[in-house]
């Protein structure tokens, strides 16, 4: 019998993505401990990592980190393919979409804080849409919009500050 050996050689990029994804996963699992006053209301600390990776290594790596985080964290929390997973995935995809545009804003004027808040709004926007179309087919879910929007500003600001502070460190 011939032993077939598939050898995967991870590149430096692979290792970096894995390292950042691990940090993002740890943050997601850690914040899952915090009780939520409202469904969908949480700090989204993992986005600090996404923002830092975006600024330093580009959108492709940020997308890898963000999506690996969504899948792995949902597996760890037993949420994989549950409604929360799809909300999380939809929010992450929308955020990445907005960040793809926001990263081209002039650096002199817009920093990680802007990107963080814009991404947070994209996140809750996508989640409200998914909730409205699929989970709670009633316009009542939009009554949550102002509260979730307020959370997007506050947590977007905090995460943006954290990302900006991280980015002052050497890589």
């Amino acid at each position, binding site marked *: 019998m011939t032993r077939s050996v598939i050898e995967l050689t991870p590149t430096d990029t692979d290792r970096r993505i894995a390292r950042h994804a691990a940090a993002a996963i740890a943050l997601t699992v850690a914040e899952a401990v915090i009780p939520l006053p409202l469904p969908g209301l949480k700090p989204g600390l993992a986005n600090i990592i996404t923002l830092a990776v975006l600024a330093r290594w580009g959108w492709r790596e940020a997308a890898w980190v963000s999506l690996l985080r969504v899948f792995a964290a949902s597996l760890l929390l037993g949420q994989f393919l549950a409604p929360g997973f799809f909300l999380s995935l939809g929010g992450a995809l929308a955020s990445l979409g907005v960040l793809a545009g926001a990263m081209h804003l002039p650096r002199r*004027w817009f920093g*990680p*804080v*802007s990107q963080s*808040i814009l991404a947070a709004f994209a996140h809750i926007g996508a989640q409200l849409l998914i909730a409205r179309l699929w989970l709670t087919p009633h316009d009542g879910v939009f009554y949550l919009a*102002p509260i979730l929007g307020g959370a997007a*500003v506050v947590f977007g600001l905090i995460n943006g*500050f954290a990302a*900006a502070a991280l980015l002052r460190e050497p890589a």
Partner: protein
Amino acid sequence: MRPPATWLGLLRPGDYAVVAAGIALCVYAGFSLWRGGAPEGLIVRAGGEIFAEADLSRARRIAVPGPLGTTVIEIEPGRARIATDPGPRQYCVRQGWLTRAGAVAICAPNEVSLILTGRGGDFDSLGY
């Protein structure tokens, strides 16, 4: 990670604008979504037919004829009520001021009804 000397130093000019726009969006959403239930106008029906449609901007009275006599509807900015009705039990009069969209006062004996219109009515339709 060292904490920065001043956290505000991490903000760039456009960031302030984004924060302000975010807050403005939330306030606007709050006002437009949570104001639900404010009535926009009223519809008066007599004998099942629409007798009058009006807005609630200024105070006035509408006299509606019915089989028993005249029902008087009183309108004030933002609210309306049945002021007098010839019906025997006066249910619609004792209902008092109607202030929410979808609120109804029905004077069944005199076949007069008063409905406040607007977003967020509590029922789909009304028939006799």
